[in-house]
């Protein structure tokens, strides 16, 4: 699998994402600067977390207008897998590769902790290696993870099985108490209709090393590697 990590001014999980990809594929991804007009020929595009352009104005908004995002958009439409983590998810919503928007956490506070998640579908290249209905623990670290979409969009997302990660309690139940940020329907991650574009607030790249935060993110990268070999 050949991967590219898009780097914007203010990206700060780019190294973490590259490390995770290197670890699983055995080779470092291409790091692509935001002003580039060209994407290398890759099997996977990762938009990492961070505070692109300081998240000033609106999270992800300025990054979404970067020259490279036109290429990413076209690649996403073509079916190239695109993974947006945290700020990457916010950017994908702003480019409209994914529906909805991410708003300020309901508590208004930045939240950094581990959350329980249910993998609602394994019918994506990102989740194919997880068992059906798997419960996983991943860290979140964000100020704006409160997913919003209008009723119609939500129904479509739910109806088409495009909610991929959901905040749940230890037993796997979708309860308000398990929702860290006020997200609609406890949504933590969604896919586009074709399933090749995934955006999620939790950080799978921070969960591949038992020394630092568990290994529940491993299957995501390993699954991609297998699928895109």
């Amino acid at each position, binding site marked *: 699998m050949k991967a590219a990590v898009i780097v914007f*001014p*203010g990206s*700060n*999980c780019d*190294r*973490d994402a590259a*490390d995770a990809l290197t670890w699983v594929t055995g080779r470092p991804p291409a790091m692509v600067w935001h002003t580039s007009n060209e994407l290398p020929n890759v099997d996977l595009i990762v938009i990492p*977390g*961070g*505070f692109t*352009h*300081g*998240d*000033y104005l609106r999270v992800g908004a300025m990054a979404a207008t970067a020259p490279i995002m036109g290429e990413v958009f076209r690649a996403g439409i073509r079916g190239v897998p695109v993974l947006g983590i945290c700020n990457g998810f916010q950017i994908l919503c702003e480019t409209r590769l994914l529906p909805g928007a991410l708003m300020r956490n309901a508590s208004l*506070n*930045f*939240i*950094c*902790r581990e959350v329980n998640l249910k993998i609602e579908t394994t019918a994506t290249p990102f989740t194919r290696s997880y068992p059906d209905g798997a419960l996983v623990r991943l*860290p979140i*670290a964000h*100020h704006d993870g409160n997913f919003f979409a209008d009723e119609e969009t939500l129904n479509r997302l739910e109806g088409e099985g495009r909610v991929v990660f959901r905040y749940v309690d230890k037993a796997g139940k979708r309860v308000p108490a398990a929702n860290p940020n006020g997200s609609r329907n406890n949504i933590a991650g969604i896919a586009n209709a074709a399933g090749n574009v995934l955006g999620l607030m939790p*950080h799978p*790249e*921070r969960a591949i*090393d038992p*020394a*630092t*935060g568990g290994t529940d993110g491993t299957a995501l990268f390993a699954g991609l590697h297998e699928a895109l070999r």
Partner: protein
Amino acid sequence: MTGSPQITMEMVRQHGLSDDEYGFVTNTLGREPSLTELGIFSVMWSEHCSYKSSKVWLKTLPTAGPQVICGPGENAGIVDIGDGQCAIFKMESHNHPSYIEPYQGAATGVGGIMRDVFTMGARPVANLNALRFGAPEHPKTRHLVAGVVAGIGGYGNCVGIPTVGGEVGFDAAYNGNILVNAMCVGVASTDKIFYAAASGVGNPVVYVGSKTGRDGIHGATMASAEFDDATDEKRPTVQVGDPFTEKLLLEACLELMEEDAIIGIQDMGAAGLTSSSVEMADKGGVGIALDLDKVPQREIGMTAYEMMLSESQERMLMVLRPGREVDAAAIFEKWGLDFAVIGKTTDTGRLVVHHNGDLKADIPLHALGDGAPEYDRPWVEPKLAQALNIDTVPPPDSLLGALETMMGAPDLASRAWIWSQYDRTIGGDTVSPPGGDAAVVRVHGTAKGLAMSVDVTPRYCFADPREGGKQAVAECWRNITATGALPLALTDCLNFGNPERPQIMGQFAAAVTGMGEAARALAFPVVSGNVSLYNETNGEAILPTPSIGGVGLLTDIAMRCDIALKSDGDTLILIGPDGSHLGCSLYLKIIEGRGDGAPPRVDLHGEKIAGDFIRILIGEGAVNAVHDISDGGLLVAVAEMALAGNIGADIRFTNKEIASFIQAFGEDQGRYVVGVPDGGAHKVLAAARAVGVPVRLLGLAGGTELKVTGEMPISLQGLRDAHQTWLPDYMAGAQA
């Protein structure tokens, strides 16, 4: 000098210079200063920049050791961590700005300390902070806590540096003067360290980063003659942090540092352009000439005075090798940052400043740097607290009841509400996050780890500043030791009241003396630090608060230890003497509502032996949980271990000579609780006796309750609720 008003004694006083100091200025110059020059002297000779009251005492601290690459005097201290790598770290205060505007004050404090670290070539890997607020019931406290915590997180999270530790205290002595001390630790290659010293003649002096505005200009400017017709536009303003620009500056500087282009580099912190240019020139023994027309400016009509004194954030000054300007400019342009050649090094030994073609300042550098005034201020021996008469302290109805109350009190309640707002895991190297003794961050790409902790117990320092100074160093050393790491060196932030009062100077002198004693005995030298004086409101000083930030090295993170109990049946053992000392303890404060008594004495010899023994136990894998005993005493330590591991414990107090509650809550120093895997207890007991460290069997880990012989057990859940609810509930009071 062109356009400068006549300097009056009123203006001199507004600039905080004494008559003698002003006399020294006119002597040095051989004439009256211009207003710009007065401003420059004023900031360079301020307590903050010149350390004029503290220098004599700071010189007594130990600063050397085989591990020390660079001690105090540079932007940050540097210790060797092997394999051609070093750790670069420092702590700094942002107390006053944080009281005025808690979010921006704390945020810019974090930004400033990170620049101190990356200006030396290090990539920051961890932030820590030591915070002191007023009494919880004080009307301003909640607002200040919320703002400071949000500001620290807002800045560090955005730049992408994990915040991994710190400490928080509440005391009415900080009602009008909170403390925000920020620490940053970075890692660099030993062969790529950058210092501040300029050198050569005719080399370009380069300004990079944000534009200069009228941010945070010395308050004295408000009333100075030039502003008699001051408009709103000219008013100095609060510094606002821009973490996004800081992140760009960090990446751009590190990128430039990969090339052989920089001769000297220095961040613009307090007193901005003035102190950075003076320090670079003075350290390198050269002169410097600045043309302020070249300075990137955010506002129109700024004067030389304003530009020299501005404290706009996210700026750096560098001296480049001649001819490297173009390459350097390209890097800063790529990152969208301002880049300007604003002057050059000279052979005059003077700071010469031009603006609009006019000469605005011409000062011999020596007078601003090494030649700045230095005072041996009068001081008196601190009045020490009387020893506690233990007979006046009644035992509690129940030890576990008292424990529950203590664990839910502001002093001991969980700080999770705070650190859950900090990104602690970014970077993928945080192997021991907040919640234990020291935090441990892996050195990226290696098996090594840096252990870090920030500590001080102000109530001890108030009761006995020298013992308190010793204790702060010892506790920091102990926290690092409890992870298995070898403590390497410390940085400090000495927060005290008005040094012109002999009592305060006495506190300062004694605390520094105690710190020095401990640092020497524990081979834990001081490599950087910061002094914050005049922390007073209406003549009421804060508690003496010498915050100590320490860094230690673990050669293999796989061998680290944390505080969590690991499994049912593990044996709990006390390393160190039994609890016997209740003076100044949290038990007295929380349960009895009194703060009297002398603080516990620090036996530095015992401290060293116990700590070295602990490190050996951890290195041999003989223990699987270690927690030092500090605030609240032994029973609190055991409770914290139980909560962290979610495993209960059953312990007993077997010393017949000392009442159980004193054994449980005494705050005697130099002690640890260890958890020993099944079957290993003998060996630990025997080994301790062999090296002469006191030990005592406490009991066993297991179950879901905390048990003390002869008492009704308490459930871990109950204890956890007590521990975790206070801070969130308190902060929610802002809304409820």
